[in-house]
C-alpha cells in the first residue's frame, strides 16, 4: 500500500475507505490490547493466618553478631521448622526502602535477612521471595541496602514489584483502605515473615512491623498517611504476618526514616521475634523509650483490641547470643 501510494498519484474511493478502515482497526485494536494487558485487578479477602504459636510470646536476643542473634532468637521460639513447613512458599519482607548503606540503618540489616532466608530453606521451604516497594530508585535501593546480594547468596528470589500484579483488598468490615491495590505475591504465599527495622519516623514516631507492611502496597501510597493508625492496623489484619522479626541491630534514633548521618545511629545489637505484630511493636517501642500509645498504629491496636499490647501479660524471653 505504501509503495503504491508512493508511485501512483491517484487514489480510488475503495482504496481510501480501505486504508481508513485499516487505520481505525489498528488504533482500536491497540486500545483493546492495552485494556487486556492492564485488566482490572481481582478482589481478595485477606490471607489466612497459620496461627502457629511459638514457645514464648516474644523473644529478645542480644549479641554482637546480628546473624547469630536471629538464629538464636528463632531457636528459642521453637525453631523455624515450627513455622515453615516443607514445600512452603515464604515471603520475607524486609524494610528495603531507601538508597542507604547498611551502616546508615535506614533499611533492615542484610545479615538479618540472609539469616531468615537460610533458616526458611533449612526448614524445607520450596521458595523464598524477598521484595519491597522502595521509596527511592529500586535498583539503587536493592544494591546499596546490601539485602539483594545477601539474600540471593542464600538462594532467595529477590525481584522488583510490578504495579500490575496486584489484588484489591476487601475487608469483612468497613475499612478506609477498601480496594487498595496490594501485591499478589504477598498474599498467595504460604507463610509471610515480616522483617522490619526499628527506626525513627516523623509522622508515626517509629517505623515498626505494621509500618513496614506499606511495602506490599501499590498505588499512591502517600494517601495511607491520612489516618495512618487505622489503615495500618487494617492492613496488618489483611496480611496477617505469621512471624515478625524486628531488627534492632542498628537503630536510627533521629531524622528517620531516611537518616544519612552516622551520628544518628545507635548500636543496640538486638533482635525481637514474635508471632503477634502488636506485641512485637509494643515491645520494640519501649526499647527506644517511646510510649507505645504515642505510636498511632499501636494506639489504634490497643483501642481495637487487636493483638496483645500488654507486656505484663506476655511471656517474654531474653537471651544472649
Amino acid at each position: 500500500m505504501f509503495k503504491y501510494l508512493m508511485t501512483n498519484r491517484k487514489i480510488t474511493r475503495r482504496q481510501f475507505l480501505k486504508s481508513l478502515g485499516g487505520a481505525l482497526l489498528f488504533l482500536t485494536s491497540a486500545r483493546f490490547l492495552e485494556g487486556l494487558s492492564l485488566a482490572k485487578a481481582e478482589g481478595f479477602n485477606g490471607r489466612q493466618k497459620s496461627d502457629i504459636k511459638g514457645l514464648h510470646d516474644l523473644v529478645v536476643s542480644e549479641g554482637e553478631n546480628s546473624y547469630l542473634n536471629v538464629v538464636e532468637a528463632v531457636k528459642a521460639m521453637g525453631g523455624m521448622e515450627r513455622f515453615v513447613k516443607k514445600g512452603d512458599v515464604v515471603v520475607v519482607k524486609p524494610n528495603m526502602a531507601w538508597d542507604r548503606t547498611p551502616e546508615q540503618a535506614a533499611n533492615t540489616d542484610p545479615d538479618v535477612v540472609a539469616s531468615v532466608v537460610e533458616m526458611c530453606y533449612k526448614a524445607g521451604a520450596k521458595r523464598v521471595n524477598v521484595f519491597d516497594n522502595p521509596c527511592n530508585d529500586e535498583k539503587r535501593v536493592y544494591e546499596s541496602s546490601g539485602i539483594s546480594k545477601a539474600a540471593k547468596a542464600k538462594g532467595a528470589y529477590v525481584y522488583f514489584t510490578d504495579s500490575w500484579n496486584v489484588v484489591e483488598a476487601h475487608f469483612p468490615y468497613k475499612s478506609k483502605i477498601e480496594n487498595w491495590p496490594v501485591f499478589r505475591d504477598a498474599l498467595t504465599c504460604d507463610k509471610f515473615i515480616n522483617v522490619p527495622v526499628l527506626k525513627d519516623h516523623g509522622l508515626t514516631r517509629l517505623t515498626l512491623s505494621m509500618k513496614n507492611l506499606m511495602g506490599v502496597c501499590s498505588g499512591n501510597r502517600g494517601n495511607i498517611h491520612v489516618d495512618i493508625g487505622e489503615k495500618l492496623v487494617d492492613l496488618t489484619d489483611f496480611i496477617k504476618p505469621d512471624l515478625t522479626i524486628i531488627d534492632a541491630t542498628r537503630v536510627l534514633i533521629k531524622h528517620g526514616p531516611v537518616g544519612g548521618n552516622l551520628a544518628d545511629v545507635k548500636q543496640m545489637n538486638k533482635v525481637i521475634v514474635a508471632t503477634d505484630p502488636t506485641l512485637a511493636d509494643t515491645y520494640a517501642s519501649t526499647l527506644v523509650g517511646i510510649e507505645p500509645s504515642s505510636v498511632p498504629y499501636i494506639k489504634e491496636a490497643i483501642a481495637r483490641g487487636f493483638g496483645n499490647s500488654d507486656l505484663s501479660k506476655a511471656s517474654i524471653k531474653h537471651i544472649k547470643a
Partner: protein
Amino acid sequence: MKRLIVLRRISQGAFLFLFIYILWSTTYPLRGALPPKVIFQADPLIMIFTSISERVILPGLIFILPFLLLTLIVGRFFCGWVCPLGTIIDGVGALSKVRKRHALLGDRANAKVRKFKYLVILVIATGSLLGVQLAWIFDPLVIAARFVSLNLIPAVTLAINRLFVFAIKNFDLYGGFYDFYRNLKGSLLGVKIYYFSNAALILLFFICIILSAVFVSRAWCRVACPLGAIYAFLSRFSLLSRVVYTCVRCRKCKSDCRMGAMNDDTDYVKSECILCMDCIYDCPQHTSRFVISPVSKKAIAQREEVPGSGITRREFLLLSASAFFLSFFKLERNLEYDASKGLLKSLLIRPPGAQDEARLMDRCIRCGNCMKVCPTNVLQPSAFGQGLEGLWTPHLSFEIGYCEYNCTLCTQVCPTGAISGLPVSVKQNTKLGVAEVDRKKCIAWADDKECIVCQEHCPVPEKAIKLIEDVVGDKRVYRPVVDKYLCIGCGICQNKCPVRPERAIQVLPLAALPDSR
C-alpha cells in the same frame, strides 16, 4: 558473490548495533563496555566546533583523529560504512519503489543541492568563532542518538513489557515464565518504562530526515549533513580512487549510484563517494575498481570542477556575512552577561552540575544521554519553554521523577561538559531549586490531617523539611515547613506528595526566588 557489499552491510549493521548497545546500556549502574560519551567524542563536527565556540579543549578530542586519518587514506568511509543514521537512511531508501533513485534530481540540480552542506558547515563555523554552537542541530550522530534514546528504546521496552504482561495475565503464566520476565526486567529490559514529554517532536524531526530517502536516495547525506561535509572535504585528498578500465558507456553505475556521485561513466565526484561499492558490481564489464593511487593536485581540481558545484566567492562572502549577523542576538546576550547585569537565570530547573543558563544552551548538544541515564526519569527534554534556543535541553520535571540524592549519573555521561562531572558529596550539596509548601493545598495545613510524606522522603540527613507541631481539638497535627538553607531542591517531596492534581509542595527554580536577585 558481492563480497565488498556484504562486508559493508556487516560493518553498517555492526556499528548500528554497537550504537544502540551503547545507548541501551546508558543506564544505572553504567557498566556498559563503552561509555556513552565515546559516540560523540569520535564525532569531529561536535568536538571541533564545540571546542571552538566554547573556547575549551574538550576531553576526548583525540578520538576524532583515527576517523580523520582514515578518511584521508580511503575517503568518506564513515558515511557509507559506520554512520548509524546513514544505515537507517539506507534501510528506508531500500523500501522505496523509485528504482532510479536520483530520478527526481537532474544532474545540474544534483550538483547544486549537494553544496548546501558546505554552506551549513560554514554557518556552524562562523557561529562557533563567534561563540555560538550550532553543530548539534544537523549532526547525524546527535539526531540518531536522540531518536534511539528518547523514542526507540522507551517504545521498545514498553512494547516488550506489555507483551509479557499480556501473556502472563491472560495465560496465567505466573511460574517460571514470570521469573524469566522478572530477571529480564532487572537486567536487560530495565525496571522503568521511560516517558519523555514532547518526544513526538523529536520523532517528527527524525522521520522528516529519514523519509527524504524515499524520494531521493541518501538525500540527507548528499544535501545537508555537516559531518558528511567535513568528511567530503577531506576525502578529496584521499589516496583511494575509483578507476574504470574499459567503459562501454552503459551508464548503469550512474543511474544506480545512491549518492549521485557519477559525472559520467568513467569519472566521479570523489568527495561525494561514500565507498558503498555498488558500482563495482553494477558494471557489466567488471572493470570498475577502487585502487590506491596518489593523485596530483591538478587531478583533484579537475575532478571537482563541475559546473554548479563548489562555492563561489560571492556565495561565501554573503553567507559569512549573514551568519555573522545571525549571531548578533547571541552576542548581545553574552554582553549582558559579561557586564554583570546579573546572571541570566533559567526558569527551568536544570540538572546538578549544569553550566549557567547561557553557557548550557551553547554547550549542550541535545544528545539525550543525561535523560536516558537518569534513573528516575526526572530529566526531560524542554520544548520551547526557554525559547527556540532551549529546545531539547534537559530540565527536571518533578511530577514525573525526582533527583536521586546519591546519584551523579547525568554528570558522568555528558560528552561536552554542559553538565560537568560532580563527586557525590558535591552533588548532594548542589542546590537545584527550593521547595515551597502551598498551605492552601497541603492536607496537613488546610485539612489538619496526618500526612507529612514530604518530610518522610526528604533525603537531606538533617531534614530540610521541618515539622511544626500543633494541637487541633484532641488531635496532634504535624505540619511541614521548608528550611530554605538546607533544601537542595531534589524534588522528591513534590514527586511523592499525594495531593492531586497539583502537588501541595513544589520546587521553584532559584531564579524565581525574590532574594536570589
